[in-house]
């Protein structure tokens, strides 16, 4: 079972090695396997959306980064708004503080079993847990149509923002998954777990209440997060 470490601009220094490993695994996947991106001479895949507004969930198991997710507030420039706005013909590009774009998910090859209790489902569970914790109401973005039935299997609801379409020989759709307690409960039931998959170390940045000068510090090491609002009355 993975532990999903929440990594953001404030605590990234605690994850130097893991973050570098994450960028190399991204290069393996998005450059060598998917051919979505040109090779990078340093073997790390980084794009224009890897900025300080991004929050990463690094799925770590037995000391390795085996899976990942990148979450970006849709109020910031994100892949759908900058690259795929034409795929939101039904609803328009979302620009909501409590909607997060979910991108850069891979699973390392030896963990890529398609069984429903595998690494991908564990990552989905961690994303849903994080989204609920942070008060998000939807997570999603551009997705390969082929994998959409996985959301169904988790009993998740995903709203399309436009029609599926073919781009560069692959089929994609922009869809957002509803974040709620039921969605977390169903994926946990499938995984047969009741515990948190998240680890929060060091300074935490609240995802939604985007005053980025206010920092949450995890004093307990795990669950109870106490807010220290800096510069607020």
């Amino acid at each position, binding site marked *: 079972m993975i532990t999903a470490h929440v990594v953001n601009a404030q605590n990234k220094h605690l994850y130097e090695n893991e973050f570098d490993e994450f960028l190399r695994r991204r290069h393996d996947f998005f450059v060598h396997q998917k051919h979505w991106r040109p090779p990078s001479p340093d073997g790390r895949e980084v794009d224009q959306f890897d900025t300080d507004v991004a929050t990463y969930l690094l799925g770590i198991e037995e000391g390795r980064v085996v899976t990942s997710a990148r979450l970006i507030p849709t109020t910031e420039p994100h892949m759908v708004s900058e690259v795929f706005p034409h795929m939101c013909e039904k609803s328009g590009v979302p620009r909501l503080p409590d909607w997060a774009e979910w991108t850069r998910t891979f699973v390392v090859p030896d963990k890529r*079993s398609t069984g429903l209790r595998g690494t991908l489902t564990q990552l989905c569970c961690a994303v849903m847990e994080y989204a609920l914790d942070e008060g998000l109401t939807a997570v999603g973005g551009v997705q390969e149509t*082929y994998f959409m039935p996985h959301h169904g*299997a988790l009993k998740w609801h995903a709203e399309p923002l436009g029609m599926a379409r073919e781009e560069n020989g692959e089929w994609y759709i922009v869809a957002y998954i509803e974040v709620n307690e039921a969605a977390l409960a169903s994926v946990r039931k499938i995984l047969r777990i009741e515990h948190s998959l998240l680890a929060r170390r060091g300074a935490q940045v609240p995802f939604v209440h985007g005053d980025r000068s206010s920092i949450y510090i995890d004093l307990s090491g795990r669950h109870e997060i106490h807010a220290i609002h800096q510069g607020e009355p």
Partner: protein
Amino acid sequence: MIDSDVFDFVERCRKHATAGSLLTDLLATVKNLGFEHLILSGVPLGGQKLAPMVELNGWPRGWFERYVEAEHAAVDGVCIYSAKTLKPFLWSDVPAKWSDTEASRRVAGEATEFGIWSGFAVPMLSVHHWQSVLSFASSTKVCKLSARQQVQLVTMAIYAGMTIQALSHDDEDKESPLTDREREVLLWAAAGKTSSETSQILGLTERTVKWHATRAREAFGVATTTQAVVEAVRRRLIHP
């Protein structure tokens, strides 16, 4: 067909509580695109039986029976190609290697007796099978779909596929036919280890390893451990 018809279908998907009501709705909706029949099924591999893998059966009754009875799945180019691609395709675009065999042409010929001449297929992930395919069939000789109609059909297909996955409950409470130990023994067998080697790896006696292998064979009703490994992989119980 206009886009809002597609999004209306997507919206209705949330309310379908049975595969039957989803099938009726999807059949009625895709009729507007010229498709009278459809089937959503796991893609059979290596002699797997088609019938238990079918999730939405909107084929003409006589045709489905004949297809299963004659084991057409093993030779039908559309079915074979459905296991080899992740992308939606027109039946007429199946490479000749699979569609132009005598047996595949015979299947296509028989289908016309049931009003099935052309079609469009959408492969997608399945958590139970190798993958699934939703195949739409038309009685027109040549399936003419505009780019927009293809987009509409794919969108409806994946939402139908999501809905079917959401309606299936078989993974939730059903006990795995194998214990963890039996799975472990089969995994090492898949890696080419003998019972003796496996016993050393797992710290068990060889007799115990053989006993777990026997139980695994019994669970599947097969004669050899190799068959048990194949069955365990096929059912996605082990991932060598």
